[in-house]
């Protein structure tokens, strides 16, 4: 095969991406004015967003490799991670899962800082840990498809910018459910919703298939399914859901985009469509989707607790069954969002039962965690505190979920502040507390710096109290007749609402404290983290800090489970070859 000496001239960095995205956007708008069927600019804006995203990805360098192969030009490899340890690697396309993990982490932190748009993107907030840790935990040197992994990260910044752009158009008035016909009546901001969420769907699918392939295919020798860390199981189950659910969202979004641009009427009743179509498609995606972010959280809790309890996970197989049970049942519950919408009455008992059944596998997660804690010698670190906080919050979230699953009570509670309090207890009290546990636990490995435990403790108690003080009153507010997304309400509830508002600012203050802890610990004190500060058994702690570019000098051979604390004759988790000085193989 003749390889041409010609080289592709496209530079590969985000600045080039942004420089290409701007003309891309205007080209789309121009095309829209040429071909748009409606006199609003929906066609142009949607095309603009899409072209800008493609141009951005091209500028970042995603087209280089396919184009080089296509034209038979010389392939310029993306710099080998081992040769590139500078700060610059975080600002350009990288195929190193650790760099992508950090890129993700910083992006997520920035998005949380800018608040509002976090609402949707919070769903991606556990991804950085997945990207960074999964290969390390299963003894792999990389993800199965590094280019795909990079893509699943690099579509997130355009999605964030596009969603943020909605504010310039007056936002989208429908909230995250995007119910048509309101979303078809809405102005330009709705286009941001369509394209932004579609990009998130792309990220979910690509990272889902990549994680599955990695976990199935790249486990080190000896990493049997029963030695897989629970966090990896959490990522595994969540990836199944992401891979299968996100395409449904994408399909619904395409229909919505067509209704808005080329005058189809999928969701317009007067022309033969139906708003029920969207409601079903959206929640068929939407309910598995809420488990997409809670399953990794379950994984994190069951992962961290044994290391600090210094005990084996109590009922490993049962815990895995619990994760799969949640993942499986999550496909059969979506119509509980539609109990009062006028669905066929015969369906209600089924969806009521399937929804209540989810409390069985969820209960298993609690059992496994509490069983692990029982008679343990608990080392009370900050991650452990957050795990216990998670258990408390998720307990309330889970129990209130049963109230909502019961059809008669749902008639009163549906769409009220009660349901808002419920899902904040599961998402914020659940996922975000697990995220904090993960941050305090794994950031030392990822950044090489310990976080201040004293600030961490203050952070935990502050956040825990402020969170409960913010969201518990909302159960009462909801029971006392206050629907969601309302600015005027019963005057009797003014006092409670003020309490909630002030608590919410305190809750925000706890986030400021977390940011302060990061800055303080990284830049002012810089207490370097040991390779294994928690004396944990699992594989990711057996490699040095900072993690070598290729993770492992030699493919490790796994010889024991990650949680075999206190077992007589327990061997180290893995034979790491180079590290313990085995010379074999020359």
């Amino acid at each position, binding site marked *: 095969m003749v390889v041409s000496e010609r080289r592709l001239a496209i530079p590969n960095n985000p600045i080039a991406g942004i420089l290409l995205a701007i003309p891309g956007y205007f080209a789309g708008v121009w095309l829209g004015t040429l071909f748009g069927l409606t006199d609003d600019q929906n066609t142009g804006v949607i095309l603009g967003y899409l072209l800008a995203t493609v141009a951005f990805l091209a500028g970042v360098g995603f087209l280089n490799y396919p184009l080089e192969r296509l034209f038979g030009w010389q392939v310029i490899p993306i710099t080998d991670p081992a040769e590139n340890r500078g700060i610059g690697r975080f600002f350009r396309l990288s195929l190193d899962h650790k760099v992508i993990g950090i890129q993700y982490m910083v992006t997520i932190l920035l998005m949380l800082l800018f608040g509002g748009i976090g609402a949707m993107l919070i769903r991606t907030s556990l991804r950085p840990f997945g990207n960074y840790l999964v290969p390390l935990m299963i003894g792999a040197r990389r993800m199965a498809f590094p280019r795909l992994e990079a893509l699943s990260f690099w579509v997130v910044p355009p999605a964030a910018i596009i969603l943020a752009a909605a504010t310039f158009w007056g936002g989208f*008035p*429908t909230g995250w459910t995007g*119910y048509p*016909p*309101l979303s078809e*009546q809405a102005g330009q901001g709705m286009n941001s919703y369509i394209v932004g969420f579609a990009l998130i769907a792309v990220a979910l699918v690509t990272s889902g298939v990549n994680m599955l392939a990695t976990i199935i295919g790249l486990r080190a020798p000896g990493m049997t399914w029963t030695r897989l860390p629970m966090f990896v199981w959490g990522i595994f189950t969540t990836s199944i859901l992401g891979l299968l659910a996100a395409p449904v969202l994408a399909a619904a979004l395409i229909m919505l985009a067509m209704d808005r641009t080329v005058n189809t009427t999928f969701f317009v*009743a*007067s*022309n033969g469509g*139906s708003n029920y179509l969207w409601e079903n498609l959206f929640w068929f995606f939407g309910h598995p989707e809420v488990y997409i972010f809670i399953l990794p959280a379950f994984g994190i809790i069951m992962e961290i607790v044994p290391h600090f*309890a210094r*005990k*084996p996970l*109590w*009922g490993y*197989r049962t815990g895995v069954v619990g994760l799969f049970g949640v993942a499986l049942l999550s496909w059969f519950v979506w119509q509980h969002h539609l109990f*009062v*919408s*006028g*669905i066929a*009455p015969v369906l209600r008992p089924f969806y*009521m039962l399937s929804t*209540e059944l989810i409390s*069985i596998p969820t209960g*298993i997660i609690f*059992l496994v965690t*509490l*069983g692990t*804690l029982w008679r*343990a*010698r*608990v080392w*009370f670190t900050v991650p452990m505190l957050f795990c*216990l906080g998670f*258990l*408390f919050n998720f*307990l309330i979230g889970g*129990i209130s979920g049963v*109230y909502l699953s*019961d*059809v*008669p*009570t749902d*008639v*009163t509670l*549906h*769409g*009220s502040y009660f349901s808002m309090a419920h899902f904040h207890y599961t998402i914020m009290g659940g996922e975000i507390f697990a995220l904090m546990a993960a941050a305090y636990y794994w950031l030392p490995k990822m950044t090489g710096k310990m976080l201040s435990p004293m600030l961490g403790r203050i952070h935990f108690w502050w956040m825990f109290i402020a969170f409960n003080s913010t969201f518990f009153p909302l159960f009462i507010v909801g*029971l006392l*007749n206050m*629907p*969601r*997304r*309302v*600015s*005027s309400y019963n005057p009797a509830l003014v006092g409670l609402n003020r309490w909630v508002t002030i608590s919410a600012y305190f809750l925000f203050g706890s986030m400021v404290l977390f940011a302060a802890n990061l800055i303080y610990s990284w830049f002012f004190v810089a207490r370097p983290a040991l390779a294994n500060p928690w004396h944990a058994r699992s594989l990711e702690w057996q490699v040095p800090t900072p993690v070598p570019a290729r993770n492992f000098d030699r493919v490790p051979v796994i010889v024991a489970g990650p949680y075999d*604390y*206190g*077992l*007589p004759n327990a061997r180290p988790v893995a034979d790491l070859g180079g590290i313990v000085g085995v010379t074999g193989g020359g």
Partner: protein
Amino acid sequence: MVRLLIIWVILSAFGIVAALQLNYPPYDQSIQGQDQASTLKLLTVLATPVFIGVVMMILYAAIYFRRTVPELVDGPPMLGNTPVQIAWVAISAILVLFLAVVGIATLSSENVAQAVGQPGRAIGQSGGQTGSGTAGGSGSELHVQVIAQQWYFTYRYGDYGGVETTHLYLPLDRPVELHVTSLDIIHSFWAYELGVKADANPGVDNIFHVTPQKTGSFQVRCAELCGLWHGHMADSSGQVVSQSDFDTWIAGQQADFNTIGKVVPSYAPYYFPEPKLKAG
């Protein structure tokens, strides 16, 4: 362990007694609302010992299983306990199935089944249903159409010449069949004290049965995000009144309605006048 159990029983007993004292919304202005309130009470009574038990376990672990020595020590290598696991799953399964059976039973008892909205007919179908044909229709039912529009609810009384009103008045102790529909986008009709919530879908007749059993006012709200004035789409002037008061009120409304009544389409349970798609 036994000590824990005793404390749990005592705390749960207190909790359940407290839960029984509470007055649960949506109270008792309608038969359906009362059913919902009692289900809510049942759920709270069942949830109390579960909540107390798990919180006790978390706290107990946090307090008593703390490491007391400075150096790291491993706990006892317990790998699991099959009978305990089976018992835990069995108990949660029994609780869940009990709840489901109770829920389905209340659901299939006539009142609540009708009170959660029924499916509309196929889109675009017009005329048709006379309004009395649904389950439990005794002929004495009052037919009220709830018309949601951005951003107000209006009401039409099918049995009174289709008179349209700006507030909802209902007579005492008479079963009501609400036909909830929308002229534009999705709204949700929520009459809080009556225990009524039904989505108003464009081109769909969503039926909801309710029987008021106490006079007094109630609040009406939209419970599905519907745009700019969603938060103001409310009316606190709903009234349950005696039959004679109702007759007086409706006669006044009919007199008012006379002029405009000539140009309003005659009453039909399915109401979706030809819309102006992309008006202007």
